[in-house]
């Protein structure tokens, strides 16, 4: 089952200094009341029809790395095949049977317009790993796991944090960019191309909100993006951090390995250790560090083979606000 990233639901603007500011402990309670099941559920479903065999369902589970498959036809929901059903089918020797004979049909379902506070109570009460979600027409429209809720809450809390930072930033920006202070850190995982680039995009948006000149934003965003991709492609995982204060945007990519044998060589145009797979994704042409150097006012790489690498890029922002 591919994970659908729920669209963030923006919080209503609130006063930072007045009552109901985002650091209120009631924020979480407010979120679980306001968010509906349809806002957080997975909507891209791997489903089967009633005629599919248990073996086909097993194979689908393996391919999609999921533990439950809804049985539906044209949106009409008939039941669910869980991993337990598959284990029983393997033990009982009926793995070749149609799933309609062995699927679980006595199910607890959620409705898509229920608040997630309701869903959380259901998880607590029934101890199921997932709940099918039906709409008002009793059509299957999604599946909800606790992971979906956790992810949605993290997105919402992050949005709230950004809103607070933006509001704080606006106050600081009144005194000019030189006094603006921001610090962010983004963990980057090896080969996580699904998320690579998100940190740089977030940095770009934060800078745009603060009305920093587009050409400066572009240089910072390009440096952050190349360093993020570098962490994803070449390191065993690391952290991209950036801060902007006293007229300087400082971007630091730090990882714990495997390290660069020849830093000078790695910074030259066209030199790369990337494999064919990475090249097929549009990266690994050996321009990454060279690009970062090109857009930076200060650039420094410290690395040792067998240990970590730290790349530090600075873009001067002062005086351009």
């Amino acid at each position, binding site marked *: 089952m591919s994970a659908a990233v729920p669209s963030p639901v923006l919080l209503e603007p609130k006063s930072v200094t007045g009552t109901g500011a985002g650091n209120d402990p009631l924020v979480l309670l407010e979120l679980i009341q306001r968010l509906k099941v349809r806002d957080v559920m997975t909507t891209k479903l791997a489903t089967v029809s009633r005629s599919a065999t248990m073996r086909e369902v097993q194979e689908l589970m393996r391919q999609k790395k999921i533990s439950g498959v809804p049985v539906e036809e044209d949106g009409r929901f008939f039941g669910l095949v869980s991993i337990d059903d598959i284990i029983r089918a393997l033990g009982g020797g009926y793995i070749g049977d149609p799933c309609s004979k062995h699927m679980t049909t006595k199910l607890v379902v959620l409705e898509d317009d229920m608040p997630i506070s309701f869903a959380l109570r259901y998880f607590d009460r029934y101890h199921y790993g997932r709940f099918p979600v039906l709409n008002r027409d009793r059509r299957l429209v999604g599946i909800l796991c606790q992971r979906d809720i956790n992810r949605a809450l993290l997105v919402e809390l992050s949005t709230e944090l950004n809103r607070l930072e933006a509001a704080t930033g606006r106050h600081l920006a009144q005194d000019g960019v030189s006094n603006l202070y921001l610090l962010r850190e983004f963990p980057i995982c090896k080969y996580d191309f*699904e998320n690579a680039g998100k940190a740089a995009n977030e940095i770009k948006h934060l800078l745009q909100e603060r009305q920093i000149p587009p050409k400066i934003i572009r240089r910072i965003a390009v440096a952050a993006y190349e360093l993020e991709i570098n962490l994803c492609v070449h390191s065993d995982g690391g952290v991209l951090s950036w801060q902007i204060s006293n007229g300087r945007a400082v971007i630091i990519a730090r990882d714990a390995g495997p390290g660069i044998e020849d830093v000078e060589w790695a910074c030259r145009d066209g030199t790369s250790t990337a494999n064919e797979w990475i090249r097929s994704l549009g990266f690994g042409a050996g321009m990454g560090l060279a690009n970062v150097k090109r857009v930076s006012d200060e650039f420094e790489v410290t690395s040792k083979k067998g240990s970590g690498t730290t790349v530090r890029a600075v873009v001067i922002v002062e005086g351009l606000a």
Partner: protein
Amino acid sequence: MTMAEMAGALKAEILVEGEGCHKAIRYVVASDLMSDVLLVDEEDMLLLTSLASDQVLRTAQIIGAVGVIVVNGKPLPSSMVEVAMQLRMTLATSKLSKYDACIAVHGALGARV
């Protein structure tokens, strides 16, 4: 010439109509190497590529491109449409080869001059 007009010239199907769809194109880059794309310091750029990956869209977003046209009739992963919608980036696909697409771009821009 706007991204929507260029899509017409390249017989491209617009899959996601983003914020830049009706913005004038000021520069066109055809490349499959995203680091090369990041090197181009131009605004309101159209990106032609035969690379069908989410990173194409994220790269386009970083440089403020008006849109992306994936050429060679490459089948797009479904995630690409989702990412384009999230980023509000115009995404189109054309069956023309990159070479023919470049000729069509030249013809379309020449016709406007």
